[in-house]
Every structure is written in C-alpha cells, then in structure tokens.
C-alpha cells in the first residue's frame, strides 16, 4: 500500500490522490471515462491517421492481416503474462524462456529427430515447468516475483547458451515445421492468427467466465481476504505462472517456426512488448485492472504503431523510443485508472 496516509483527508497521500483532489468531480468523472476509452480511441486514431497519410501501403487488407499475423506471437505471450499479473505477480522470465523454447524445439527436431508434434509437446510441458518453478519460488520461498523471475530468466538464458553454444540452429529445419507458422490451414487465415484467437479466447473464458477465474481475480484483488474466503492463494498464483510459462513456450515455438531457426535471445524483446501491452490493456475499459481483452487491444496498438513507423521509414532508433515511451505511457495510464477507481 501507499506509505503515507493516516486517513484519507490527510496531506501525506499518494501522488495520485493528491492529483485527484485538485480536480472537480465532473472533471474527474470525465477523466475516468477518457482514461477508459483512451487506448481504444488511440488505436482508432492511429489507424485513421496512417490510412490518410499512406492509403496505398497501410490501409490494405493485406497489410492489416500482416500486422495481425506479426502481432499474434506478442499477443499470445502477453495473454499469458496477463494471467500472472491478474494474480498480482510479475513474470520477467517470459522473453528469455521463449528464446530457450525456440532453440529447444528446433534442436529436438533437427538434432534429435523427434517427430514435430512430440517436440512441441515436450517444449510446452517445459514451459509449464518453468512456470511451476517460478510459482514455487514466489509462493513457497517467499521471494518477490520481480527478483524470482529475473533470476529464473537469467538462468534460462544460460541454459540456452549451454544447449546451443550460442550458435543458431539453422540447417535442416524441415519445411513442415516452417509451415506451422507460415501456413494458412483454416480458410486461408494465417495459422498464427488462428492460434492467437484460440489461446486468447480460452484465457478470456478462463478468467471471466469460470469459477476458478473468480478465484484468480480474487487473489489479485486481495490475497488476505482470498485466503480467509477459503481460496488456496499459493496454488492460484502458481497457476498464473504456469499459464504464463505455457504461453511463452507457444510464442517461442511459433517464432522458431517463423524464423526457421533456433537462435539465442531471439524472443527476448517480447518481454517489453508484452508488458507494454498488458499495462496498456489495464487502462482499457476498466480502471487499471488487468484483463485479457485489454491486453489484446494493447498489443494491437503497439503492432500498428510499429507498422506505421516501418511504412514511413522511420529510423531504427525511433522504434526504441516508441517502445520505451509506450511502456511508460501504458503504466502511467494504468495507475491513473486505478487512482480514479479509488476516489
């Protein structure tokens, strides 16, 4: 909790509520509504602006499908991360884990000659295992999740180097494995998109429409009250990490298939994208509460933003600026939403 507030009226309040106090109630209500729809408006504004500026390159069905296809991998890993943050923890291991999984799946197929489905299955199970380890460290050893998952993530990077010696696995990747990501098996829709919709759909139902989802939301909302309501808080938190781990594995597999190689650090940068998407999402439609649908919107904003920058030939450095700025804006909007909800 905020460190200084003896009672609500006092001066030693969190910055956010000090900030609120200066607003008239009407302005506050207006700001609340604005904050809730700001991300969606931002997304639409961006699409409209890019369409006007560059109708030929941007606003084509081909480009939209392309953006969505590209963004699918980020959406899957961000969807998993959403579960971890809904239970009130952070998972910083996902990017590193996805990189390792990409190497492992190609290695299993190319070197160990495992059948593709089996290789995928093993890697998904490994993803769940990493989630279990994270959950164990956080709930049983009581290590703060930022530190725990950063540590696990670093170890994972080490394992990836140990397995591949830093050399990408490129040669001998079978066409069938490439088709996993490149194929369009269902009505000509890119497989990545199909998988993404499927995964996010399941996650949405799980969180919003099942009894365990109610417990997941409860644990993130108030762990002490959850425990007294008879919920196994440790198990629910671990479940959040496990789902996050599985989604990271899935993203790692699809990325390896798309790149046609297993490369160390290939998926590391998904960490930042996923966080930006999740925090942008928490400011979407709800007051700073993390949810799957929001994450989807957040990921779309980032995807279209990058796409626009690419189309207009923006220099590489600006992509980093965009990435960093969007992360800060996202977290800012998210905490603004939360402070408005409290007032």
């Amino acid at each position, binding site marked *: 909790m905020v460190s200084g507030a003896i009672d*609500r009226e006092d001066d030693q309040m969190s910055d956010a509520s000090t900030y609120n106090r200066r607003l008239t109630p009407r302005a506050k209500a207006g700001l609340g509504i604005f904050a809730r729809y700001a991300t969606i408006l931002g997304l639409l504004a961006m699409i409209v602006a890019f369409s006007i500026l560059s109708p030929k390159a941007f606003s084509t069905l081909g480009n939209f499908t392309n953006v969505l296809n590209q963004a699918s991998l980020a959406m899957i890993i961000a969807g998993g991360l959403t579960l971890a943050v809904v239970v009130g923890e952070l998972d910083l291991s996902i990017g590193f884990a996805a990189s390792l999984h990409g190497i492992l799946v190609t290695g299993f197929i190319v070197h160990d000659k495992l059948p593709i489905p089996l290789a995928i299955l093993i890697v998904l199970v490994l993803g769940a295992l990493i989630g279990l380890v994270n959950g164990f460290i956080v709930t049983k050893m009581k290590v703060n999740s930022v530190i725990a998952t950063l540590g696990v993530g670093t170890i994972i990077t080490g394992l990836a180097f140990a397995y591949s010696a830093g050399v990408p696995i490129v040669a001998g990747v079978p066409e069938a494995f490439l088709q996993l990501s490149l194929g369009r098996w269902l009505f000509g829709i890119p497989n990545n998109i199909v998988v993404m919709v499927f995964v996010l759909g399941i996650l949405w139902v799980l969180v919003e429409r099942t009894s365990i989802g109610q417990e997941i939301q409860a644990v993130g909302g108030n762990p002490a009250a959850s425990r007294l309501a008879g919920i196994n808080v440790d198990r629910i938190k671990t479940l959040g990490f496990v789902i996050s781990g599985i989604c990271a594995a899935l993203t790692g597999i699809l990325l390896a298939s798309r790149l046609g190689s297993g490369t160390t650090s290939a998926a590391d940068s998904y960490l930042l994208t996923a966080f930006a998407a999740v925090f942008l999402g928490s400011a979407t439609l709800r007051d700073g509460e993390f949810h799957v649908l929001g994450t989807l919107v957040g990921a779309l904003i980032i995807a279209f933003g990058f796409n626009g920058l690419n189309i207009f030939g923006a220099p590489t450095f600006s992509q980093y600026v965009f990435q960093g700025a969007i992360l800060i804006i996202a977290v800012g909007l998210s905490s603004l939403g939360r402070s408005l909800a*409290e007032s």
Partner: protein
Amino acid sequence: MAMGAPVVPPFLVVRNISKAFGGAKALRNASLDIIAGEVHGLVGANGAGKSTMIRILAGLNHPDQGSIEIDGHTVGIETAHCATAFGMSFIHQELAFVPGMTVLQNIMLGVPKRSRFGLTDWAAIARDVEPIARRVGITASLNANVKGLSTAENWLINICRALVRKSRLIVMDEPTASLSAAESEKLFAIIKDLSASGVAVLYVSHRLDEILKLCDRVSVLRDGNSVAEFTRAGLTRKALVEAIVGSAHVGNDSRPEYAPQTHEIVLRVQNLTRLPKVRGVSFELRHGEVLGIGGLVGAGRSELVRLIYGADRADSGSMTFRGKPYAPKSPQAAVAAGLGLVPEERRTEGLFLTKSVAFNLGLVNLDKLVLGRRVPLLSRKSQSSLARETMKLLSIKTASVDSPVGRLSGGNQQKVVIGRWLQRAPHILILDEPTRGVDIGARAEIHRQIRELAAAGMAVLVISSEPDELPDLCDRVLVMAEGLIVREMSGASISRSAIVEASYGERSH
C-alpha cells in the same frame, strides 16, 4: 425567535446540500448547523448519507447544490487543506495507520511545523505536543512506533492532532465501532472535556445509547434528507428510532425457543494454545447453538477463532469436528470441512473493494454458481440473482449488483461480508464483530437470519465487543480474559453487566 436571535452565528451552517454519485442520490437538501462547543449527533440508517456529509465538510467530495457557511460567511471547501484552514478536523470511518512512524510524527502529519535552520525542530515540537497528548490520554511515549498501538490509541492520536491544529470542530465518524467499552468511556470523557473548552464535536454513531448520553443536539438523515433535529429536551430513544427508520416499527426480534443440550456436539476444542494470546482453551459447540465469546479487545478472542479456522496453527491442543479429529492446515481446509468466517476487518480481510457486489457475494458460493459439477463455467445469471436475493434479505443499499463494493457505505459493506456466508450456510459460522457499523434495523435483521440458520442446525460462534449484542443473540456466552476462558453463562443468566464484570479478569467460577 426574531427578538432573541443570537448575536454570534453558529460555527457551521450547512444549507440544503445535494450530492449525487452517478444516478445515486446520497444527499438531497440536507441541512445541519453546529454551534461552538456543542456535541452534535448525526444519525441515520446505513447509506443515509452521513459519511457523505462529512466528506463534503472535509473537502473530499463537493456538493452539487447548496451552501456552507462558517462563522456566518459562505465558503467553498475545495480541498482538505481548506477544511483544515477553516478549523475542522476529521476522524474518518475507515482509519488507516502509518506504520514505521513515531507517535509524534503521526500527530504532526500535515501540521505546519516549527523549524530551526531549515530543519524541523522535533524537540521543540515534542515539548509543545506533550501536554496535549497527555490531556487526551495518550500514554505511549511520543517517540514510540505506532505499529504496536491499538485502534483506540490511533483515535487518540487523531484527536491530539486536531487539538494541535487548534481545531474548532472535530468530526468523528463511528468512533466506537472499533473501541472496547472501557476505551469508549475514555473517549466520552475526552469529548466532554473538549466540549467544555469550546471545541464542537460532530459525532456519528449507530449506537443510540451513546448518542442519548453524549449529545446536546442530534440531526437525523434518512435517504439523504434531513428529517429531524432534536435538542436535549426532546431526545428519547423512541423518537430517534422513529426518525431514523421512518416509522414506529422497531425490529422486535423474538428469539425462538431452544434447548441446546439436546443437540449433537459439532466442535470440541481441547486445551487449544497459541502463545501468547491463546493459553489453553476448551469448550464445546453444538449444532443449532449460538455461542458468544465476550471479553475485552485483546483478550485473545480473534486469535482463538483464527486457530479454529486454520488461519493460524496452534502450538498445542486438539479439536474434533463432527466426531473426527480436526486440525485445519489452512482456511481452505476449514472451509472445505464446512466452516465460515466473517473477519474482524471488513476492508482488509473481507472485501474485494474494486470488484462488484455480485463478485463479492458470489465468492464463497461458486459451487452454486457454476453450470454443473463437471462444468466449471460461471452462470452470470445465477451470480446476479444470488446477489439480488442477498441484497433484498439484508437490505443492502447499492445502485446495482455491478457497482464496486468499495462505493457502498460502511454498514452496507459489512452486510456484503455477512451475506456471503449466510448464503453458504456452513456447519459452523464464525462471526468476528458481525454488526460493526451496521444500523439498528439491519442489525435486527442480521440477528434474525443468524437465529433462523441456527434453528436449521447451523452452529454459530460470535465475537462481539458491542455491549448488547451477545445478550441479544446468544444461547450461551464464554468470557475470555488474557487468553483463557474465565466464565461461562447461558440462557437467562447472560447479561451485559455479567459479561463486563467477567471481562475484567476475575477468575472465579
């Protein structure tokens, strides 16, 4: 009146204030005036608008209509700073602590401080504050960390701060809800003292005895309207209740006849110990019985029920539940076995403040809300109909079942925590201060529900510091002092005075 009109205007006049939150009207044309040095009561049912009125005076909410005058001048209270500058101090319903700071730092929060060479001169401040702190009855050292202090001592710190600021009005929202009887008495003495020295007190409470004893005048709110104002002369309990409820009807809870010894024992506790608070407690609880645990705050009552509920582990001792050995490793195990707990602190231990009323009510009833045993899909229809049913049962006042529970008034939040477990109807329901902050009408209704469930076989364990609650509700009462059960009484021998007497640690039987 025109002839003898007072030359000095009242300190504070609130005229025809209205305030709506979205569609919900919290105040409609409410008025209030406070004369310097008086103790002014503000009463009304849960959700009547008392806290809203106070938050408006404190500059935390802003009225949609109406005016506020201080010393005869119309003012706008834009921020909490304005309210302080006008000479008002507030002790709100939901009090929070600032752990890691000293008593003195807490007293001086937000108060302009003397400084020397640009540094706060704590020594000089301590010299100034010391006599005021002693006057309000703070016994702890000013340099002590507030972490170990009780709720009562935190109240005193707040009062002390108000005096350091030289406030002319101190507003207290349900002060005795979390104080013991003895602490309440001390507070009353302090209030009398304040009043005698010219400081006005605005006093909000659901305990009418306190209002009758303490207040010079009383204003009554009902559904956001000012419906009555009493002076000392016209103040009776009956008139107050009528004004609050809006009719002469008072919930007259007639207790069903009950012969506890014939029912089966559901829980047997033997020598349960967790030092230092629980030191060898033994008792039996039967189906259909409402068993009260009386005693002072700090006697170890909450700690005892936490052991039974698996929230803490016992050092030694044993329990049997429905004839079988019972040693819950966690609340989850206790809930699975068939226990329920309404915890002492609703906001930190009971509620999910940003989540909806329906979410909060549904949480321990999820098995009833899924489509089938094998299909864990949530039925939103069942969830909101369960919520609506509970709302009606306990008259929970909320704009809708989808409103965040944090937006409800304090008493209505409490009803949500209780309603959740009434719906589940476990074998044993443990209630820790169940009606804290709940108005008289709803209190009678909650008691009636508890009796009804008990009549159907549920065993109930109630902790209460409210003087009349245990005699009103219980078949049998155990009194705890310093971690031990010092007295047992049942049926007609249960009385307020007997409980109080035993609470002070007299160990004879």
